[in-house]
């Protein structure tokens, strides 16, 4: 479905120091610098997969999505999506894909979303019966009733995002590129959007490639993740395996019936936090079983939970490690 082979994308940017003197100098001399946004990455995605693209800001995630959706021409390498070369932007290719960018909109600002819907119906040449059925389905899945007739500018951010998703999916694309689709949304709306993406993927067998800074999005939606940092692909596999590799330790949450001494807790593992009624320990995989047994036997435990470390922590550690290795 999606094949990326040795993809590179670089830009030239002008460098200039601040100040009037530098501004005057830039009139005659403007040094250019090459920025390698994506540097030799390869991966494949099968039809119907949901894949998360993770990486810090400027890692190359959005650039990759833009190359895959035909907006950018690769500097070198080969890209194929559903058998098409994206940068050729053939009608057949564009009919099969969509790119939703959380910070850009295609809805017409001063007109109701229904006008953009009709416009897209004409542009994508969607038969009337299919259009009506899709609109009805999307209205139900996303709870759009009552929104489609209001001018876009009067919709809340969450309402607008739901309409953006709907208009991007009217032509029933087989490949969804989603760039920060939940950015700025509240927790409930994030969950709604996530649920919708999953439902669309299951209903139409669509392939989903998603970037998000919200780890919950990735954890809830993507069995497979690609981690990109400084333009390099540094991990391709399951999220569970990534967590295990980066942070092989587990978190043990203890609810206590009475306060205990910190040193009693420290015997079990690294103490992350402690209150009178609760303590959080970090314990390595190998010592986990013994630590749990000892905690239950020696401490006044009311409840005990074993968790993976928070994804945000895992990613922070992964990128910090990358930055340190890069600097070394």
């Amino acid at each position, binding site marked *: 479905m999606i094949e990326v082979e040795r993809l590179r994308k670089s830009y030239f940017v002008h460098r200039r120091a601040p100040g009037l003197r530098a501004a005057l100098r830039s009139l005659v001399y403007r040094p250019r610098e090459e920025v390698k946004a994506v540097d030799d990455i390869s991966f494949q995605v099968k039809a119907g997969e949901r894949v998360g693209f993770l990486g810090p800001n400027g890692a190359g995630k959005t650039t990759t999505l833009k190359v895959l959706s035909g907006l950018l021409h690769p500097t070198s390498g080969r890209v194929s999506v559903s058998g098409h070369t994206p940068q050729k932007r053939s*009608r057949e290719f564009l009919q099969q894909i969509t790119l939703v960018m959380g910070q850009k909109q295609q809805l017409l600002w001063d007109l109701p979303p229904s006008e953009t819907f009709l416009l897209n119906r004409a542009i994508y040449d969607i038969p009337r019966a299919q259009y009506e059925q899709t609109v009805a389905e999307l209205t139900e899945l996303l709870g759009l009733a009552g929104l489609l007739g209001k001018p876009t500018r009067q919709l809340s951010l969450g309402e607008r995002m739901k309409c953006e998703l709907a208009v991007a999916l009217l032509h029933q694309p087989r490949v969804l590129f989603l760039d920060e689709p939940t950015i700025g949304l509240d927790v409930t709306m994030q969950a709604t959007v996530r649920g919708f993406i999953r439902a669309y993927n299951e209903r139409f067998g669509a392939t989903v490639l998603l970037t998000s800074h919200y780890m919950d999005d990735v954890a809830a939606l993507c069995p497979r993740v690609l981690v990109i940092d400084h333009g390099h692909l540094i991990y391709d596999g399951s999220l569970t395996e990534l967590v295990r590799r980066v942070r092989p330790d587990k978190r043990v949450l203890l609810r206590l019936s009475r306060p205990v001494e910190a040193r009693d807790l420290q015997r079990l593992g690294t103490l992350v936090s402690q209150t009178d009624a609760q303590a959080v320990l970090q314990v390595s995989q190998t010592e986990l079983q013994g630590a749990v047994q000892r905690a239950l036997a020696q401490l006044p435990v009311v409840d005990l939970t074993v968790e993976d470390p928070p994804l945000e922590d895992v990613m922070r550690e992964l990128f910090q490690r990358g930055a340190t290795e890069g600097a070394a």
Partner: protein
Amino acid sequence: MSLRAAAKAYPALLRVGFASAVAYRAEFLIWMFSTNMPLIMLALWAAVARSGPVGTYTQAGFAAYYLCTLLVRLLSGSWVVWELTMEIRQGTLAMRLLRPLHPLLAYSAENLAAVPLRGIVAIPVMSILLWTARQQLGHDAVLWLMLVPAMLGAWLLTFLVMALIGTLALYVESAASLFEAWLGISAVMSGYLVPLDLFPKAVQQVALVLPFRFLLSFPVELMLGKPGRVEALALLGAQWTYVAVALVATNLVWRAGLRRYSAYGG
């Protein structure tokens, strides 16, 4: 993308374009009423012509010329260069590029769809023109018939030049400034400020072969019945040759520009 698919989508594009123009009606009316340069020039030249004709223009001649100029300007105006440069700078062009429709076709529909709304100003201008300057207008029906393709040509040439310069924003940051320069030359060489036949002979010779004339002066000349039929036909041919050249150039610059399109991070 196929032209058949574009032709099928075009009515919907025009309809939505009209709805957008209506949504921006206040801004739109202000723009139209601010297009008053021909009226200012009319007042100036009418004052000059009070003591006698200037070239072949009497006071009534100037009135007819500038009312025709205003009408052509109102109906052939476009704003694609501003929209294009802004969308390229902000990266929002991406949303248009994702659709299976050439963005320039979408822009053309949005611009064309505003023409009916321009009728609000254009129709009164037309009425005044027909009433006050009826003696000065041409009486050859063939020339009036030629006005239809000439107006379409003027609109297309205006649109394509704007699209061409706007597309340069894919290469340089100062495309809008480049257009300002074009606008300055165009105001003089298209007959917007001064009728071309009032220029010294040497300037006239240059102005008559440049594309600017076909943006404005040529349709005005047809309305005033200035050229003979054969000359008018030759001019129409020249205008549409410029349209074809602009179309090819815009397409080439667009295609090459998209290879450079980066909208880094945006």
